[in-house]
């Protein structure tokens, strides 16, 4: 499964490694819902480190869309909220 870490590029993560990522993703979501910035920071950092560890970087000239996309490592909780919101931050 192809995962993009925004600002870093795309990685291919084996299906067997997804369970661990899912658990971290749940923590990330809970932190966003409660607005807990420090839990959010830790969860995001851990999630990205995990993806970098288990994932294999795709060649830069691949044109495949990602199934999963993760915010950049220095994103703030409000920024991610905006990205997930209807208007979104991502330029057209």
């Amino acid at each position, binding site marked *: 499964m192809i995962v993009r870490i925004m600002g870093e590029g795309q990685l291919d993560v084996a299906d067997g490694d997804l369970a661990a*990522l899912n658990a971290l*993703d749940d923590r990330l*979501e809970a932190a966003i819902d409660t607005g807990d910035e420090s839990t959010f920071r830790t969860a995001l950092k851990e999630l990205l480190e995990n993806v970098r560890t288990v994932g294999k970087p795709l060649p*830069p000239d*691949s*044109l495949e869309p*990602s199934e*999963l996309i993760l915010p950049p490592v220095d994103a703030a909780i409000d920024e991610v909220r905006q990205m997930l919101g209807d208007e979104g931050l*991502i*330029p057209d």
Partner: protein
Amino acid sequence: MSVMKRMSMIFKSKANKALDRMEDPRETLDYSYQRQLEMLQKVRRGVADVATSRKRLELQINQLEQQQNKLTEQGKKALQVGREDLAREALTRRAGLDSQLGDLRAQYQQLQGEEEKLTLASQRLQAKVDAFRTRKETIKATYTAAEAQTKINEAFSGISEEMGDVGLAIQRAEEKTETMKARAGAIDELLESGALEDFSGPRDDIQAELDRMGSGPGVDVELERLKAELGQAPAPKQLNPGQQQAHGQQAASPQQVQWPQQPGGGQ
């Protein structure tokens, strides 16, 4: 897969919206390619912009470091001539610069990081744009209109995701450099107005005081020493020239005088 999934859905829906606006698949290819080239230009401008801000900071850091060194030297000199009050003043001012410099150096690190990130992003995008161009030509030459649509959609969603990612990276870098430009501008103004350096250049009061005391060990200190050698009482504050001449014969010439070792003397 909540957060990760939702983010990818947002990217996909943006790509689909852009595709829906196109009537003819071939038009989609060419239009998208143009957009990609524009985006590449934008990223390169972004990198250049960050680099400019970084160089400006570097310049300011150098200026402040020079002032810091100057104050250190002045502090040493003041101690050599026994003026602890002046030395204290110089060191107090230097401490004020220390925190400014700390801030600037931290900002510099941050800008370096941004520059590196955007440079890499620009390389990634370049590789994808090249790949897209190749695929675009293949699609145009090989497929019927119906087949082309599928192929185009595949290529398009991949590249548009990259463009969205890079676009956001540029936005974030721009915000950071704007903040830093404002700060750098404020420091430039301070440097120009002399508020940061009322102790250098023509308005340098510490230097003026040190100069007044003569170069090398101060005249006053030397006089005190000579007086002591001649077994006189401490010299009065104002000396008239006549007094100095009267003892001229017994006084050693300045070159022969053994200077007392002073703490903090710059070697």
